[in-house]
């Protein structure tokens, strides 16, 4: 910490915020109090720049049990089953120390889920880096993937899907977002409440040390510069073994109804895990830091309160059950300490060595955090960017373009990543990584849960409102193609420096676009995370929202469409808008022309909803063995991926080469068996979904016939080599 700054500034607080704290307390804060306010009011914990705008999201639906504001969203799946879901980012820690940054991101999101009473059943990782020709980006990718694998595999929760993408803007600031899904019986739901006065606070799990002080809360709440690697010691170190034991212990506590509330210790550590549950319960709490089990002697009160040591949970327990809770901890070989008592009133009182070191209204740490309405303004460069479209006088060489796009690491085979993740544990994974989305059965029921996570920074950069909406539509279509009805969204909003008006404008526009699409779909947002300050040396990342869509298939189709199920002789039909030639923001223009400009195509809620209904019907009635959405790379890539997975060629006709690479929303292709063609056409007509018969699967080439003459024919094997080497050939 700098010696020249006042201590509140060194802790990242503004003078105004310091004055607010003095007002709340009617006196200057103690060192411990200042530490608590500084972490709780940090951007990461308080959402102070975003909170005013997040209220735009639609958050209610009859099936929402717990909406935003708790540790995770919870929705009702029927028949007594609930699902808990949440997404979190660990961008800055992963840049500073990729393995531990990613690993502890996994640990944190798991705790958000089992805090609610649910057993975590699956993870998805959404990761973005700078181009792989830079060795540092290869180091970051390898480290992040090893970290997700090292933690997720060992803690015993499968990573069943996600997305990896590469773009220059992520070179100094990779994105590591992880989503987790858990399931539980209705009676197991636990909230982050302190309960009633007299309830005992029991700290479970790892000991508290000096690691990660201010890690997520401060590291994630400031921008990066050349000195960022000196922040490495602020990154926490994960211990998946401790977390595994903590999961099992907590699940046993819930099974035996031994707790009234639970709060995990993540960012802001004990400061958060004491103040938030008390604020939610409308109570106070007395906490004795001297009873916290510690990793090293001589820690100050401020250090104990700010520590982000991982794998810790605070359980709130009726006094009559304390012995039983401690016995469960002993059985699972985790440490436990009785550290506090819930009190009447609203005062959080922290003592240490028989001295009160902090005393404040509990709710002032969370609910009195500042809400900023930062300036926003449309970037002055935006209209110029929209006008910056390429003109094509000649048809490009389709073969070389397609092979180059397929070989791009953002498009090609991601198996180098997902084969390092256990994606099968628990025997639920009906559809795993490498498909449109994931489908997980709930054993003992007819139900299955579909999840798709999607992001597209380039489109959101060109038009954040359209990009944000398109993402929600894409994710919804992905779960629909698995036979599931979209039911809830969690989002991770990764943006640049909110102190810049154009970044705030991008943020507000993105939220608007996502909200419009969610409203049209009737799908609520049940939770999310905001990550600001994703900039390095004053260059912001593309606005990069990540959408995690949960869908429910009930019953699950017995035979689920998969990319590898196309067969010789099946027809290839394209559903949805047919006439798009817009290459703005497309993978084609980025990869082939190095160009990012123009304005992406906007979504159309009427068509969008009809397409989703059609996809659900086709999957549920088991009419098509393959469906695949048209997204990155356009229909040419979509079709190639099916051909490569199914090991069968294709022959299709096209009237506009640009239509092969355009990325309009709401489109998908399907493999249509002859005997189902009439039924499929009838459903599509009924729903008003346009369709086009593109051609037929067969042979060992992917062939494109120009309706005005000329054929492009690419050997399937060549396409396969290009696609499968996209990441593998660069990473070894």
């Amino acid at each position, binding site marked *: 910490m700098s010696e020249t700054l006042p201590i509140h500034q060194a802790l990242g607080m503004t003078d105004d915020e310091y004055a607010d704290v003095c007002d709340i307390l009617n006196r200057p804060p103690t060192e411990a109090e200042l530490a608590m306010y500084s972490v709780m009011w940090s951007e990461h914990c308080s959402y102070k720049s975003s909170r005013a705008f997040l209220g735009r999201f639609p958050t209610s639906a009859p099936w929402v049990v717990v909406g935003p504001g708790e540790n995770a969203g919870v929705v009702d799946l029927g028949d007594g089953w609930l699902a808990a879901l949440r997404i979190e980012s660990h961008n800055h820690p992963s840049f500073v120390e990729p393995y531990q940054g990613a690993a502890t991101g996994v640990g944190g999101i798991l705790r958000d889920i089992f805090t609610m009473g649910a057993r975590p059943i699956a993870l998805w990782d959404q990761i973005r880096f700078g181009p792989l020709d830079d060795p540092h980006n290869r180091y970051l990718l390898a480290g992040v993937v090893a970290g997700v694998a090292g933690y997720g*595999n060992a803690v015993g929760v499968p990573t069943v899907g996600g997305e990896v993408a590469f773009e220059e803007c992520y070179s100094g600031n990779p994105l590591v977002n992880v989503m987790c899904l858990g399931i539980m019986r209705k009676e197991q739901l636990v909230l982050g409440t302190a309960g009633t006065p007299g309830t005992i606070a029991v700290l479970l799990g790892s000991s508290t040390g000096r690691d990660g002080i201010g890690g997520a809360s401060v590291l994630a709440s400031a921008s990066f510069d050349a000195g960022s690697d000196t922040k490495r010691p602020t990154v926490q170190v994960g211990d*998946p073994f401790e977390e595994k034991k903590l999961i099992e212990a907590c699940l046993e506590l819930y099974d035996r109804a031994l707790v009234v509330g639970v709060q995990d210790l993540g960012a802001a550590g004990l400061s958060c895990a004491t103040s938030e549950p008390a604020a939610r319960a409308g109570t106070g709490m007395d906490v004795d830091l001297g009873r916290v089990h510690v990793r090293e002697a001589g820690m100050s009160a401020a250090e104990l309160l700010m520590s982000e040591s991982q794998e810790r949970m605070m359980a709130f327990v009726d006094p009559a059950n304390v012995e039983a809770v401690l016995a469960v901890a002993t*059985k699972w070989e985790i440490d436990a300490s009785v550290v506090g008592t819930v009190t009447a009133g609203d005062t959080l009182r922290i003592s240490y060595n028989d001295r009160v070191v902090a005393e404040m209204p509990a709710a002032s740490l969370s609910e009195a955090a500042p809400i900023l309405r930062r300036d926003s303004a449309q970037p002055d460069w935006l209209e110029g960017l929209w006008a910056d479209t390429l003109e094509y006088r000649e048809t490009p060489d389709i073969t070389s373009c397609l092979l180059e796009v397929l070989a791009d690491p953002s498009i090609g085979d991601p198996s180098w990543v997902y084969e390092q993740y*256990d994606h099968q*544990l628990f*025997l639920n994974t009906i559809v795993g990584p490498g498909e449109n989305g994931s489908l997980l059965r709930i054993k003992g029921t007819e139900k299955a849960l579909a999840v798709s996570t999607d992001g597209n920074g380039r489109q959101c950069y060109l038009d954040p409102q359209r990009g944000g909406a398109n993402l929600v539509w894409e994710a919804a279509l992905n779960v629909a193609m698995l036979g599931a009805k979209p039911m809830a969204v969690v989002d991770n909003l990764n943006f640049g420096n909110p102190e810049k008006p154009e970044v705030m404008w991008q943020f507000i526009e993105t939220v608007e676009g996502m909200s419009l699409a969610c409203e049209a779909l009737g799908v609520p947002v049940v939770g999310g995370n905001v990550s600001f300050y994703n900039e390095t040396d004053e260059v912001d990342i593309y606005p990069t929202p990540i959408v995690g869509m949960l869908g429910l298939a009930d019953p699950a189709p017995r035979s689920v469409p998969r990319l590898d199920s196309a067969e010789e002789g099946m027809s290839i039909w394209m559903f949805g808008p047919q006439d798009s030639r817009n290459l703005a923001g497309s993978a084609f223009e980025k990869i082939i022309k190095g160009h990012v400009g123009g304005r992406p195509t906007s979504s159309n809620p009427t068509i969008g909803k009809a397409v989703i209904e059609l996809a659900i019907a086709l999957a549920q009635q088991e009419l098509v063995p393959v469906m695949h959405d048209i997204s990155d790379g356009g229909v040419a890539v979509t079709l190639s991926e099916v051909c490569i997975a199914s090991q069968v060629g294709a022959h299709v006709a096209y009237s506009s080469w640009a239509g092969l690479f355009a990325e309009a929303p709401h489109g998908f292709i399907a493999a249509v068996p002859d005997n189902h063609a009439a039924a499929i056409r009838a459903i599509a007509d009924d729903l008003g979904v346009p369709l086009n018969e593109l051609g037929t699967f067969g042979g060992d080439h992917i062939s494109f016939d120009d309706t005005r003459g000329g054929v492009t024919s690419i050997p399937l094997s060549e396409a396969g080599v290009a696609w499968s080497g996209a990441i593998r050939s660069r990473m070894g």
Partner: protein
Amino acid sequence: MKTAVVVFPGSNCEHDVVYALETLGGSADLVWHRDTDLSGYDSVVLPGGFAHGDYLRTGAIARFSPVMAEVNRLAASGAPVLGICNGFQILCEAGLLPGVLLQNRDLKFICKPIHLRVESTNSILTRAAQVGDVLEIPLNSYEGNFTAAPSELASLESAGRVPLRYSDASGNIDATNNPNGSTNNIAAVSNGNVAGIMPHPERAIELILGSADGRILLESFLESKVSSHV
């Protein structure tokens, strides 16, 4: 036959193994690693996972768990004892099987379906299979690279105690279809009534999850009787 599925702190495949055994008509209970009485059981599975975190050599701490005295006793009594993945590593550390599982050749975790060829039916894993059968079973490990001292290898090979090897879909066994660098493509090892396998047969018992080829291995285990001469 009642099977004890041992849960070490850090195990994570225990529920899957119980589910698979029960799906195949077996009966199984989870037993905690501190349990010191397995007298109610006539077979044992050590499931996959990361016992005690695997922060030391895999299985090196688990072999000292209290339950291992009972596992040793049951093994000595002729009861079928099967280690899957981390369980295989633990059996090697405990001396119930020869050899050791090193880090994968490419120093990366591998989770994907691979092919195994049945090499011998003289084991609790393969007694119901045919030599030459090719099975598709998921592999899921970081330390799956089997090796052993030359004398141990020679004795394993000469006694037909290698029930399964990594192969391609046609049953060819060579370096190109060796996923993790295991010596002689060894995927499973047998020692009388004790066996260890690195891939996960419990993950391949239903076609909806991709393969049902693991059934024959777990059915072999369930059909194996105490002290039967396999």
